[in-house]
């Protein structure tokens, strides 16, 4: 029985000639886990919002959306609110009240349920989700993962039959994201909850889905089981960038078999059966440390936020050389952002010193540290925007937009909040480049970006590096740092562990490493990206073809 049926749905935003969604038709079976993917701006969010009556955007709509056989516009208010649930991207802003228990009870209060009923459902939900430990806390004191879990529980407490999720893990770190997806999987399997989820981070979601929907430029181009969709996808499709590593590997090696591997385990099996790889890839020799002058140094830095709290940074020492791109990795709350803020002069560590180009931070007076020296891109890039158009933003800091290695003229007349996340990132980066910094500090630049935007950002950073800028990135994104960093370091318990080139860093790790390395460990040492595996795998296959041809 189809729980959601969409027929010939087209939607135009007000004063737009081109439809955001064009003649989309599909139906979702009850109890299915469907993932919807596509590039930014393809209409995924619009489609999701059109399935939830209270969140429908303004505009012209043709076609119909039916929930459980009845058109959505004809469903009564209570059913529309409680039977369809919606979880959005931002964990922080979705929370309405200041206490966790009140947030859980909010939806049921809206429905006017009696006190006893609410009490029972709240107790049940809190127990199921494991929220009992933080039940009486303030919502402001929760971590990002806990907040998003609270949002999910607050929606699930209304006992919906269909759950719509719009990029719920975009703002979460990888571990919290994994836990969230696992909770969704559990809900689907145990409660037969129909789930329709939009995601960019497809590595975990695709193997769990029953069906994969692909949207391009407002139309639905594929709707089938994930294996079929990925096997049939052309190898040059731009969507492959966001797909699981095993699928990307399959296409990069030429799609030899009919079935595409989805998980890393299947990818490893695929490599073993269909690909002969050299047993070891060459590794670049380590860059000699005295080749360049030190640009930024932390010397035995100690920092903590409260007098009686444990140290966030404990004897942290790191030296970044001029012209290199360094990625600082580590778990949530490991102190990476703290180290960056201390370098930017926002925090003063209680012990230790930080030197910028050999001079102590206190030697830079009158804000000289921020002119032609250092610049930081914060985690939340919207904090940099104060004007009404992008043109004014860039003009404010006197940036020469031509010097920036990316054309921003297309967005000059838009409000900075109206562009997508990836575009905001680039505008903010252009803005801070106006200070002509020689060191660029980036705090989680790839948060919430799709594969395309990440690649664009990476290219811009490479171009800036060639102009001589030293780049320090704090990130959770292992795949990004494997491709774009010269050196990687792991921050653990306030201490730096292992600052080496990505080849050595990831090849030396067993768990904290890229998907490509996990798939190829033991088969081909020192391979850390899908591109490397593809390059050497293809070479081998080419050699074998040549050998076979020579023999005949």
């Amino acid at each position: 029985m189809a729980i959601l049926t969409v027929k010939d749905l087209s939607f135009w935003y007000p004063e737009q000639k081109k439809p955001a969604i064009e003649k989309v038709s599909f139906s979702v079976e009850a109890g299915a886990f469907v993932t919807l993917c596509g590039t930014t701006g393809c209409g995924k969010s619009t489609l999701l919002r059109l399935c939830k009556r209270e969140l429908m955007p303004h505009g012209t709509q043709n076609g119909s959306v039916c929930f459980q056989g009845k058109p959505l516009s004809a469903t009564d208010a209570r059913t529309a609110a409680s039977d369809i649930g919606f979880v959005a991207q931002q964990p922080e802003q979705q929370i309405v009240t200041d206490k966790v228990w009140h947030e859980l009870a909010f939806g049921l209060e809206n429905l006017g349920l009696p006190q006893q009923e609410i009490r029972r459902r709240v107790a049940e939900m809190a127990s199921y989700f494991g929220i009992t430990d933080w039940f009486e806390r303030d919502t402001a004191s929760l971590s990002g993962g806990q907040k998003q879990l609270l949002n999910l529980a607050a929606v699930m407490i209304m006992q919906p039959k269909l759950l719509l999720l719009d990029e719920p893990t975009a703002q979460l770190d990888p571990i919290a994201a994994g836990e969230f997806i696992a909770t969704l999987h559990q809900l689907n399997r145990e409660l037969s909850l129909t789930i329709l989820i939009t995601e960019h981070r497809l590595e975990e979601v695709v193997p769990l889905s029953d069906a994969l929907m692909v949207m391009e430029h407002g139309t639905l181009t594929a709707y089938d089981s994930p294996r079929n969709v990925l096997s049939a996808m052309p190898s040059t499709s731009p969507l492959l960038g966001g797909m699981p590593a095993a699928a990307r590997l399959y296409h990069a090696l030429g799609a030899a078999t009919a079935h595409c591997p989805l998980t890393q385990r299947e990818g490893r099996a695929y490599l073993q059966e269909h690909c002969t790889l050299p047993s070891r890839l060459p590794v670049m020799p380590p860059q000699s440390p005295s080749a360049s002058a030190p640009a930024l140094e932390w010397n035995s830095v100690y920092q903590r936020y409260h007098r009686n709290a444990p140290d966030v940074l404990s004897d942290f020492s790191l030296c970044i050389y001029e012209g290199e791109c360094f990625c600082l990795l580590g778990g949530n709350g490991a102190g990476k952002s703290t180290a960056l803020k201390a370098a930017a002069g926002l925090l003063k560590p209680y012990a230790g010193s930080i030197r910028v180009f050999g001079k102590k931070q206190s030697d830079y007076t009158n804000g000289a540290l921020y002119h032609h020296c250092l610049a930081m891109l914060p985690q939340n890039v919207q904090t940099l925007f104060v004007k009404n158009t992008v043109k004014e933003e860039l003009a404010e800091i006197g940036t020469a937009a031509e010097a920036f290695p990316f054309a921003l003229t297309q967005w000059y007349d838009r409000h900075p909040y109206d562009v997508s996340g990836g575009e905001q990132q680039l505008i903010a980066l252009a803005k801070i480049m106006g200070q002509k910094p020689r060191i660029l500090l980036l705090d989680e630049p790839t948060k919430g970006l799709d594969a395309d935007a990440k690649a664009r950002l990476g290219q811009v950073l490479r171009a800036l590096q060639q102009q001589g800028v030293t780049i320090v990135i704090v990130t959770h994104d292992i795949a990004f740092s494997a491709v774009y960093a010269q050196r990687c370091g792991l921050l653990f318990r306030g201490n730096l562990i292992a600052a080496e080139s990505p080849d050595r860093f990831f090849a030396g790790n067993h768990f904290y490493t890229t998907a490509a390395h996990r798939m190829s460990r033991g088969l081909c040492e020192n391979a850390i990206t899908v591109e490397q595996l593809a390059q050497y795998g293809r070479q081998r296959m080419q050699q074998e073809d040549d050998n076979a041809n020579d023999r005949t």
Partner: protein
Amino acid sequence: MRRFEQGHPVPVAAHLLCTALIAMFSRDPLLLGLALVGALGCYWQQKMDHKLHGFAVLLFFGFTLLNPLWNQSGTTVLFILNDRPITLEALCYGAVSALMLLAVLYWFAVFSRWMTADRLLYLCRRLSPQLALTVSMGIRQASLLTAQLQRIREAQMVMGLQQEQNLIDRMRSGLRSFSATLSWGLENGIVTADSMSARGYGIGKRSSFSIFVFHRKDALHLLSVIALTALVLLGISKGALLDTYYPNIQSPPWNGYSWLCYCAYGLLSCYPMLHNGKEALQWRYLQSKI
């Protein structure tokens, strides 16, 4: 172990109200002394801010000494200062008023610690459940906006635009940050509004939920508070308290009603302290058996 303040909000609020109101409207030194003792006991158990003590002492001496300067009624003159007679009655009245202020100050400090936002809202929700929700949301948005303002100021500082030199520049920077926070708040308020309407806000009459359950112990507390207050009021109505200072201090006769009044008020005032103490002892005993 369940402390007094962890119970249902109604008995806690009733106790605080009765104790503070009786203290506010009386000028009997012994009664006020008992009120102060009870408040200090509760304050001590909470381990709160010690700067209040300094302020309290200042207040006491200030009031005691100011009253004779303004008020010249009273018959026993101690000495003349600048043509103003300083009378004993005025001094005593000043001292007792100051004592009343101290007692009420400490009780309100305890009140602000015990009655957190959600407890206060629970009491107000009978009046208006909508108000309770609005205040709860207001508290949440306030903390969100202040956190964002701090982040914006940091970002502005690192851009080199936060000038700290003179007042004009600082005001300008402050205004920029404020304007950016406002834009951010409006933009992200839409997400909150969507989240609310997605969960059915506004489709009908809202009910109200609270995690506070009225246990038997809470009923016991409430009854005790009401009974003790009734006894104190009985004693007051029979004139057991000292309330006349001008023109002469007239202390009322010490009879059964005085005993009743003072003992009842003493118990009322020290009720939370005694209850918590008893619970702690009981817990120690139970713990030793585990």
